[in-house]
């Protein structure tokens, strides 16, 4: 295997995949950090976002990218609605009950997808796209745009969290919730804002996965483990950690076939997860341990 093949067939897909994981993992790390529970419906919300984008695209008959903002808005609204309906009343009870409720929500979201959109695999764009060559590196337009979209999302989110008043409030809530409340930050506003952002991120992750692959009703559930592995690897509560974690998990999965039989590829994320819990539970960037 030449070096350029290694880059093209292991690193490039790993980076594309990893950046999609990252978008999902950022949402997970935000829920984990700010609302302090593991959100198991994350993957299925991503599935729903991906399908909303598909329907939007069908409605306008345009490029799938038209569907992305619409799906993000819808998914944000759905996430806020889910919180109000299913998580809010559990707020003062042990957090683990909310984790459990999110498992139930995952099932509900999935069944809605299955009833509305069916269980067949489908795609945004038919046909195949051969890659263009940039200095020997093979990249498709959609992969380039995926990386651009992920970069935009991450930079935009970072700017929001660093510069805006409410972004800082979210960070404060993640950092020290009691103190944030003492400072007069309204818990409910932060919670709502968090869900809106997390929902939008879910939709983006689902959309980007669908764009680079097929859509089906189980796609999000299969994303869950890699996303959690990425979030914990990077350090819970760390946006930049989730990005780093996502990339590492994505690349590791693509490299795993060099040493493991192909069918164990899906186990890579989990092995990383268990190792990091064993060796450095705070993650690479020193996140929280709940």
């Amino acid at each position: 295997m030449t070096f350029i093949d290694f880059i093209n067939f292991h690193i490039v897909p790993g980076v594309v995949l990893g950046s999609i994981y990252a978008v999902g993992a950022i949402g997970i790390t935000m829920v984990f950090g700010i609302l302090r529970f593991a959100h198991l419906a994350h993957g299925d919300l991503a599935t729903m976002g991906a399908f909303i984008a598909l329907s939007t695209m069908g409605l306008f008959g345009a490029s799938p990218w038209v569907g992305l903002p619409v799906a993000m808005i819808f998914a944000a609204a759905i996430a806020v609605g889910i919180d109000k309906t299913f998580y809010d009343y559990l707020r003062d009870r042990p957090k683990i009950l909310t984790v459990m409720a999110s498992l139930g929500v995952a099932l509900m979201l999935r069944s809605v997808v299955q009833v509305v959109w069916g269980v067949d695999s489908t795609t945004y764009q038919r046909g195949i796209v051969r890659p263009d060559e940039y200095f020997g590196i093979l990249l498709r337009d959609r992969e380039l745009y995926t990386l651009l979209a992920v970069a935009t999302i991450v930079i935009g989110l970072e700017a929001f969290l660093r510069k805006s008043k409410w972004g800082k409030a979210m960070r404060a809530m993640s950092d020290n919730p009691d103190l944030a409340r003492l400072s007069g930050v309204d818990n409910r506003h932060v919670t709502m804002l968090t869900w809106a952002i997390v929902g939008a991120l879910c939709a983006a992750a689902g959309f980007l996965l669908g764009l680079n692959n097929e859509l089906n009703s189980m796609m999000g559930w299969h994303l869950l483990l890699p996303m959690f592995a990425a979030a914990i690897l990077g350090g819970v509560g760390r946006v930049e950690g989730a990005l780093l974690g996502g990339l590492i998990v994505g690349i590791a999965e693509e490299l795993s076939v060099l040493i493991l039989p192909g069918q164990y590829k899906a186990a890579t994320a989990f092995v990383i997860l268990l190792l990091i819990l064993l060796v450095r539970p705070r993650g690479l960037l020193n996140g929280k341990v709940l």
Partner: protein
Amino acid sequence: MSALLSMQAVRGGYGDADILQGVSITVAPREIVVIVGPNGAGKSTAMKAVFGLLHVRGGQILFDGDDITGWAPNRIVKRGVCYVPQVDNVFREMTVHENFEMGAFLRKGDLDAAYDRVYGLFPDLRAKRKALAGDLSGGQRQMVAMGRALMLDPKLLLLDEPTAGLSPKYMEQIFTITRDVRDSGVSIMLVEQHAKQALAFCDRGYVLATGANRHEGTGAALLADREVAQMFLGG
């Protein structure tokens, strides 16, 4: 002298059991009041009762003419009381300046004057404004915590053991700053373990034991009181 804060025979606790068995404390404007007492006397609990973090089951808490008994903390904050907890009192992963910004979260309009005031009170922090609060030393962190609380321009500042774990040098510094804060027009209620030093610098003091008032008076008077000295000042 009309009191800014007046706790009258307050009873209450976190769960069903009452920790406070009738505590009465008043704080006048521009006054530093220290609460001392042995471990488990209910010092911090009394302070938390003011800030609405407790089930108050008896008595009354008046602040600046309002009965604030049973108010939620965020309402009390808006009324002009700020609380600095003993531990976890800064946002560790935010910069010093961001900590101050969070302190002023509820304030609208131009905050330059407020920043000037806190950096004026804590000149050391001006150079460290971009540093993460979690990376600072204990004493500096305590200053950040006080600064954060002062950003709201409170009438009353509640400090829960601000000198715990600090070196004598920093303890002195904190006390000096506390006086400066008072001089800038803020009343202060302070819970302290270092009773001797605290009574020496405060205006008035209260000694609590087993959830009730035991002694009160000016700092100097309490220091001179033999019973107080025997109780926990170690002779």
